[in-house]
């Protein structure tokens, strides 16, 4: 238990010194992605070998007097999920990709003992054949500016000591020497805008809550990252949980709140586990609880698990859910800063916003304002997915162009295909087209073209994507997630989905397109909360940029991208068919029959044109037409 600010600073200096005695550190990615490819086994194997050789150290061992050794540690997501499991060697900065358990011995023998790099485990550009020794030299990392994610992949997320050694909780110590008003002013001046999508200035929220008079105030962290195709917050919660907690305690001190809640999606069990561990450690160290560091300030945090409702990402629905109710939004005003959780003044920010806070205060407002664009300072984390060479988690300064993200960091579109669109901000966002490649990505620029950053999901789509189907996909999602409270959203999304389904099925009319557009505008104007207000964005932006595709579906009865099943039929070329029967086994409707080693046949009556057979056929014998 640390009792004073002084004691915390001394401890940090101790830990820092201890960390300096680590000769080498092996970080094995233990993010959800790499873990599912077996990274924990690699971690255990590495640790076992290093320990057997008597080389293993960690902060505690060093404090006991052991010097110069190798630390093996699990870490948060390194971001380069496409190439997992990842192993990083510090201080050299070597990055090993697609590592297997069997490679552990070689890594220890060559890299740890001889200081040599294991060539075959390095990242190799599949197109140029160039290999990269360190992560920094790989364009995927080189073009990024990882500030909020600085610890993700470089520290053990389950060790508060490592976080403290790297300067963690020092900002909190500094904050305690400032007045709450000054802390709010700092966040205001830094123009920190909410990373959850809306981009509302966090400083205004904090200062409003500070000015409210109430017997109890709350800080709520929104970790209900429900956008399909987004996993930034997950990676922060899994990879650097203490940073989120530190940000929340600072918000509590600045606004006068003494209780904090983190609302995490139930789909993120690892994030819940790491946050729980972090909260327990912070309590043990006296950084959460009563009279923190002897300042007289009390603050504690509770975790609430979501139960699978996308709408709970909306502020008032989220607080309703914490209160044990159906997660439905309410009309505003009163705003959350006046009457939020339990009708008390509440600071509600998203995970990434809180993670920005310690950085701003420790490095200063001027430093922060230099990153990003005017009015949109700082960085933004994006989840880069879809038809892109380098899938993963990235962080770039606000205002970075789409071109830099897709081609420099993302490595472009696989298979030499053309870029067709990028869906930004998930089902509430909109699509961008190649003409937007040089548009700076920040809150204001994106809004001007009808899209929004949303939480930061970037789904890249190549020329083989049908935009009408994409609009249908998002509408299907939003319609299911509509809470049903207000009519425009409840009924409007349902009707829009029906029209989109009709068009995709080849039964749409020109009138349908008009109705769709009117409905989309109405739902946008008339809905109660953010979910409904933005539900039309995918429809409106696809209509704006890809209207000809809608018309092709309706008038010419073709799907230009060749995706929509209604316009397809399949047959088996008896010349090419070898009679392996693979198609028949994958057919979901048992429409394919035949004798092994003889050509198979598709029953057109039964065929639902799903194309599973075409994908399964090893001889390309299933033809469209």
């Amino acid at each position, binding site marked *: 238990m640390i009792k004073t600010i002084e004691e915390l600073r001394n401890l940090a200096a101790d830990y820092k010194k201890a960390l300096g005695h680590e000769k080498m550190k092996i970080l094995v990615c233990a993010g959800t992605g790499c873990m599912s*490819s077996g990274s924990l086994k690699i971690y255990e194997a590495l640790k076992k070998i290093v320990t057997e050789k008597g080389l293993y150290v960690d902060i505690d061992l060093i404090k006991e007097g052991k010097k110069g050794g190798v630390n093996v540690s699990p870490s948060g997501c390194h971001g380069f*999920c496409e190439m997992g499991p990842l192993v990083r060697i510090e201080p050299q900065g070597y990055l090993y990709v697609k590592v297997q358990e069997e490679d552990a011995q070689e890594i220890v023998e060559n890299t740890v003992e001889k200081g040599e790099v294991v060539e075959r485990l390095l990242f190799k550009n599949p197109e140029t054949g160039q290999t990269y020794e360190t992560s920094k030299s790989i364009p995927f990392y080189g073009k990024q500016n990882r500030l909020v994610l600085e610890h993700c992949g470089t520290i053990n997320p389950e060790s508060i000591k490592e976080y403290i050694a790297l300067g963690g909780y020092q900002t909190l110590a500094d904050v305690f020497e400032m007045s709450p008003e000054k802390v709010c002013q700092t966040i205001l001046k830094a123009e920190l805008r909410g990373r959850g999508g809306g981009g509302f200035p966090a400083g205004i929220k904090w200062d409003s809550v500070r000015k409210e008079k109430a017997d109890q105030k709350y800080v709520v962290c929104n970790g209900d990252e429900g956008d399909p195709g987004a*996993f930034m917050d997950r990676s922060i919660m899994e990879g650097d949980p203490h940073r989120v907690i530190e940000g929340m305690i600072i918000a509590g001190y600045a606004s006068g709140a003494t209780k904090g809640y983190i609302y995490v999606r139930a789909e993120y069990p690892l994030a819940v586990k790491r946050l729980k561990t972090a909260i327990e450690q912070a309590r043990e160290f006296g950084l959460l609880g009563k009279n923190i560091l002897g300042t007289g300030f009390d603050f504690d945090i509770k975790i609430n*698990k979501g*139960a*699978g409702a996308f709408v709970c990402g909306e502020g008032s629905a989220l607080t309703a859910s*914490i209160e044990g109710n159906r997660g439905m939004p309410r009309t505003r005003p009163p705003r959350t800063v006046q009457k939020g959780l339990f009708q008390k003044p509440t600071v509600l920010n998203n995970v990434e916003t809180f993670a920005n806070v310690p950085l701003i205060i420790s490095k200063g407002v001027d430093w922060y304002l230099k990153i990003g664009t005017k009015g949109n300072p700082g960085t933004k984390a994006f989840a880069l*997915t879809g038809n892109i060479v380098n899938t993963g988690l990235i962080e770039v300064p606000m205002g970075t162009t789409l071109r830099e993200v897709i081609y420099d960091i993302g490595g472009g579109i696989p298979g030499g295909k053309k870029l067709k669109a990028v869906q930004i901000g*998930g089902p509430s966002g909109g699509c961008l087209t190649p003409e937007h490649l040089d548009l700076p990505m920040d809150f204001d620029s994106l809004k001007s073209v009808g899209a929004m950053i949303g939480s930061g999901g970037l789904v890249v789509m190549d020329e083989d994507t049908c935009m009408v189907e994409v609009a249908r996909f998002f509408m299907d999602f939003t319609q299911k997630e509509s809470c049903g409270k207000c009519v425009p959203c409840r009924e409007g999304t349902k009707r829009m989905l029906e029209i989109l389904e009709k068009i995709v099925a080849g039964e749409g009319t020109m009138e349908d397109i008009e109705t769709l557009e009117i409905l989309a505008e109405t739902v946008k104007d008339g809905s109660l909360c953010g979910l409904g207000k933005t539900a039309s964005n995918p429809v409106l932006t696809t209509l704006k940029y890809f209207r000809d595709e809608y018309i092709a579906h309706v008038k010419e009865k073709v799907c230009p991208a060749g995706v929509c099943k209604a316009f397809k039929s399949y047959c088996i070329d008896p010349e090419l068919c070898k009679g392996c029967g693979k198609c028949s086994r994958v057919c979901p409707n048992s429409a394919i029959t035949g004798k092994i080693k003889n050509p198979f046949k598709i029953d057109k009556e039964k065929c639902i044109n799903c194309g599973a057979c075409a994908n399964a056929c090893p001889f390309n014998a299933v033809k469209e037409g």
Partner: protein
Amino acid sequence: MAVMVKDYKRSFKKVNEIIESYGRNPVELVSILQEIQEEYRYLPEEILNYIATAMGISPSKVFGVATFYENFSLEPKGKYIIKVCDGTACHVKNSMDLLNALQKKLKLKDGQKTTKDMMFTLETASCLGACGLAPVMVINEEVYGKVTPEKAEKIIDEIMKREGNSDDKNN
């Protein structure tokens, strides 16, 4: 570890323990239901009524919350809950083919989610947040990345083997 439903029939001891651990506080209703579902694998109707009485809130409130959230099920679920991700990233990487293959493998007919032997429940999830590994499926808490229909069938076969269950019995 979950205990079979039959052990709990008409015994509310465990339910009581859970409600008590949350101090009978109605604010904790979502967490209480989550914990009960973890025990029983679903929310039996009689237990929902019991919770309402025990906590002094209306049954309509309890049912309202239980039916609002997607993760709550009023139907019994299988021992293995398979969630196929149909988030954007997985969708563009053909997650629906994966779902179709699993439906066929588990012999699930239209709209049927759970196999008759209560071994498997097949669901979709809107996003599991592991987009880098698309398409993704999760069985209970284990995440499987870059799953092809063939790979999925193999995983199911392994579970069936472990459970001493052959494909035929699963009808």
